[in-house]
């Protein structure tokens, strides 16, 4: 059969790399064929999600931030300073987390989706017009964030003026100065050329961009056990591949940025400088518990336990 797989990024970005590896594995180990649909070719994020729910698409990659409108618990990944920045710790967490592998799947199932995996896409960094060393530097800074209540709350707590803006307008708005900041992983800042219109990149370590791959549930349940195994193996292979692919990707992307624009400053905040940002995390966590759905508390507690386990291992 031909299976269709849509994702939210371009072919050469992290989600695209994952999808290509998945396709390669499936096609090598079965008679099925995978067609890939990158960002925008079948509509916006919410559209491809609905198409996966209705079975037009068999697979979809959507980040929990967008899924939050359907599954409020998924927004937990926006609580700042929850996830560690250490790549190995992260990988082990995503692989073994009970929250991800046991608590989330039923929530996705309620929406007609089989959660196949979640994986990290890289440390989220701030790009700004002025240098940032603490929340004071974000005062009055119009900062573009996705329209997610928790992100908005985070940046408000950081002292910025969170400003919603459709993605297509971000580059222009940074250039003319309507907004003075935005956040994204390094590879994305590089591939979307965001660095051309910004002067400072600050690593505050507040988050790691997370994304999830799902299948349409009826489709998945209707598959033979053999096919389900092929899919599970392909997902595992793609997961290992993408973790490996990302090793050093952040540094590489930052180097490319530095090379293309030598005047840019890239600053990693010290633990001390991060502390005032970290102090705001509690308020966002509270907000999550309020809007994160019935299982918000359970998910948050389990995630924290899983993270501890990952740190110990």
């Amino acid at each position, binding site marked *: 059969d031909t299976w269709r797989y849509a994702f939210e990024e371009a072919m050469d970005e992290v989600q695209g790399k994952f999808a290509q590896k998945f396709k390669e594995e499936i096609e090598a180990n079965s008679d099925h064929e995978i067609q890939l649909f990158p960002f925008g070719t079948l509509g916006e994020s919410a559209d491809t999600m609905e198409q996966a729910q209705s079975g037009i698409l068999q697979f979809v990659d959507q980040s929990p931030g967008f899924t939050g*409108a*359907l599954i409020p618990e998924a927004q937990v990944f926006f609580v700042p300073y929850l996830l560690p920045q250490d790549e190995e710790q992260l990988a082990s967490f995503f692989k073994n987390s009970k929250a991800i592998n046991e608590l989330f799947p039923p929530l996705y199932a309620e929406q007609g989706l089989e959660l196949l995996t979640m994986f990290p896409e890289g440390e989220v960094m701030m790009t700004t017009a002025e240098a940032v060393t603490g929340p004071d530097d974000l005062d009055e800074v119009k900062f573009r964030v996705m329209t997610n209540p928790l992100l908005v709350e985070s940046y408000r707590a950081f002292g910025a*003026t969170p400003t919603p803006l459709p993605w297509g307008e971000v580059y222009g708005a940074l250039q003319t100065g309507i907004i003075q900041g935005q956040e994204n992983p390094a590879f994305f800042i590089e591939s979307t050329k965001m660095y051309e219109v910004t002067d400072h990149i600050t690593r505050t370590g507040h988050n790691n961009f997370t994304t999830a791959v799902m299948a349409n549930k009826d489709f998945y349940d209707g598959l033979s056990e053999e096919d389900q195994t092929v899919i599970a193996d392909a997902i595992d292979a793609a997961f290992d591949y993408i973790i490996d692919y990302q090793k050093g990707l952040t540094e590489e992307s930052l180097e490319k940025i530095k090379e293309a624009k030598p005047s840019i400053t890239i600053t990693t905040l010290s633990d001390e400088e991060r502390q005032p940002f970290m102090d705001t995390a509690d308020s966002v966590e509270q907000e999550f518990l309020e809007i994160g759905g019935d299982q918000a508390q359970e998910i948050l507690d389990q995630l924290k336990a899983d993270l501890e386990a990952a740190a110990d291992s």
Partner: protein
Amino acid sequence: MPSPAIDDDIDDAGYVSGLPGVLGVVDAAVARIEAVLLAVGVLLMALNTIANVVGRYLLSQSLFFSEELNQALIVLITFAGISYAARHGRHIRMSAFFDAAPPRLRKAMMVVIAAVTAAAMFLLAWYAVQYVSAQASRGRLLPALQIPVWWIIVWAPLGFFLTGLQYALTAIKNMIHKDIWLSTSTLEGYDDTGEEEV
């Protein structure tokens, strides 16, 4: 020559429904509501957009719902408008070949065009109902407004249905009346703009 925009305003008070009796009264009322929705939708859109700018600069506070509200309004305007446009024969068509045909053929073509268009609109209305109810059952919320998504798209099935109705009536009107009707209230060649109809 006066500016073209002014004399082409549609006079809603002078609108006569193509339908008889009570149906006509209902139809005229629907027409009035469509007109009000169009005007109010556009005004609200301007107000909303300006308020967002004012908020951002004077209050350091962006209106997070601004974009979603504009989305809601554009859906409202589009779907109130397609029915209103059908009513007044204002949909865009490429009429060069049509206009060159002899009157009897034109009339027959108008019946076919109106009937097929009506069928397409009813079909879309039906699937729009499906789409809206699927949205309602999934319970997706608009992230900023925190209201269900289906609230802002419920105009789609309604707009398709009312548009289909207008075209169906146009087909019938062309069958039972002489002359060629672009819509239930607009005769072909009827010149309410001082210019050609489109």
